[in-house]
């Protein structure tokens, strides 16, 4: 389908937004879906039956999924035609900001992988089932994934989420670590972790590798989040609002500085550490970010703050 039906008003991401995604593994768009789409989605998602003594919480979710109006979709479908015309998700994906962000990250013709309706039940459901009400272990989705290319996971919050409702917990900057799903479950808390507290209609765009988990719901209201995973159908090279001719980025002074450098350049974004970074491997994180930026820009010589140039220098051997 390509960019058929896409107007010039479809805003692509900026280089700074793309660098933010490369460095931190997420982009957040607050309250971008209008009330009409949010209400339509909640209507299509349906409401879970109230708890009954002895009924498992998973049963309540299974019954909801079986009878709601969100369709089953097999993986491999072209995204732009995957959802029924006029459905809430189809309308959500057609929003210019949403479409532009998707195209910027995974190209013009992304492929549907899977979706899921995540429902986190309040304490009364767990009490009725005589089950513990706890948060989800932190994990990375799918399985060990050694690619440089990445999938995009869109988290859609169709209603407001308060802190007592839990929200999605995620740790910025963890996405480039190659781990095996919930093998990291013993890490209960990490410095810099974020909890999604947001208004209705908020979207969280995640690199597939970001470490995350569902927060425990301690409110009296059921929490709903809809996730869609997409993958690219072509190399994710220069898909955003990037000049046709990209001038080489000049190196900037490092370590010995007279004053703080500007914080919003691509180089600065790619070399900003997260609070949880280990002191030595934090530098390897910078290197892996630079490698991902090279892939996305198609520039095999891009560097930030000399991290790659230094270790790629073979002058001594050649000489």
């Amino acid at each position, binding site marked *: 389908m390509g960019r058929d039906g896409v107007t010039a008003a479809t805003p692509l991401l900026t280089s700074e937004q793309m660098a933010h995604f490369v460095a931190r593994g997420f982009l957040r768009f607050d309250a971008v879906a209008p009330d009409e789409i949010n209400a339509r989605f909640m209507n299509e998602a349906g409401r879970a039956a109230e708890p009954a003594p002895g009924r498992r919480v998973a049963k309540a979710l299974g019954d909801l999924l079986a009878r709601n109006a969100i369709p089953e979709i097999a993986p491999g479908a072209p995204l732009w035609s995957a959802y029924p015309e006029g459905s809430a998700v189809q309308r959500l994906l057609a929003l210019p900001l949403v479409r532009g962000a998707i195209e910027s990250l995974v190209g013009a013709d992304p492929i549907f992988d899977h979706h899921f309706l995540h429902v986190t039940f309040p304490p009364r459901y767990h009490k009725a089932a005589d089950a513990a009400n706890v948060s989800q272990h932190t994990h990375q989705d799918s399985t060990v994934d050694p690619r440089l290319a990445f999938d995009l996971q869109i988290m859609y919050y169709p209603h407001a989420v308060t802190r007592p409702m839990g929200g999605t917990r995620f740790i910025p900057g963890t996405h480039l*670590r*190659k781990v095996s799903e919930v093998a990291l*479950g013993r890490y*209960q808390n990490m410095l810099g972790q974020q909890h999604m507290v947001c208004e209705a209609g908020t979207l969280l765009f995640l690199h597939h590798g970001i470490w995350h988990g569902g927060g425990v719901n301690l409110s009296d209201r059921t929490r709903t989040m809809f996730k869609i995973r997409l993958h690219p159908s072509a190399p994710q090279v220069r898909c955003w609002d990037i000049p046709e001719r990209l001038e080489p980025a000049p190196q900037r002074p490092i370590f010995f500085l007279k004053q703080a450098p500007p914080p919003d350049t691509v180089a600065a974004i790619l070399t900003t550490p997260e609070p949880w970074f*280990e002191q030595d491997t934090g530098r390897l994180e910078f290197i*892996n970010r630079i490698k991902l930026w090279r892939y996305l820009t198609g520039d095999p010589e891009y560097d930030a703050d000399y991290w790659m140039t230094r270790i790629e220098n073979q002058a001594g051997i050649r000489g």
Partner: protein
Amino acid sequence: MLYLANSALDAPVIAWALYDGTGETLHMAGDADEPPYASGLAALRDGWRLFQASQLLPHPRGEEFDLAYLKYEFLFEQWGEMA
């Protein structure tokens, strides 16, 4: 369980977990945004016994830049009365 910023016990805490075998308290993922101690040494000074520290291992050739799990894991224990 404390995860530190480098292999020194007095390095800052970057991640943590607490499992209470007495059942008096329940801890879970995402239940605290601030660490219980500033460093591993601070935990020692508060009466925790260190019983395991992760090894320092060389980087396999060709995998020098691969990152996975947190590197500096320290396991502490305190003994308490069961209810």
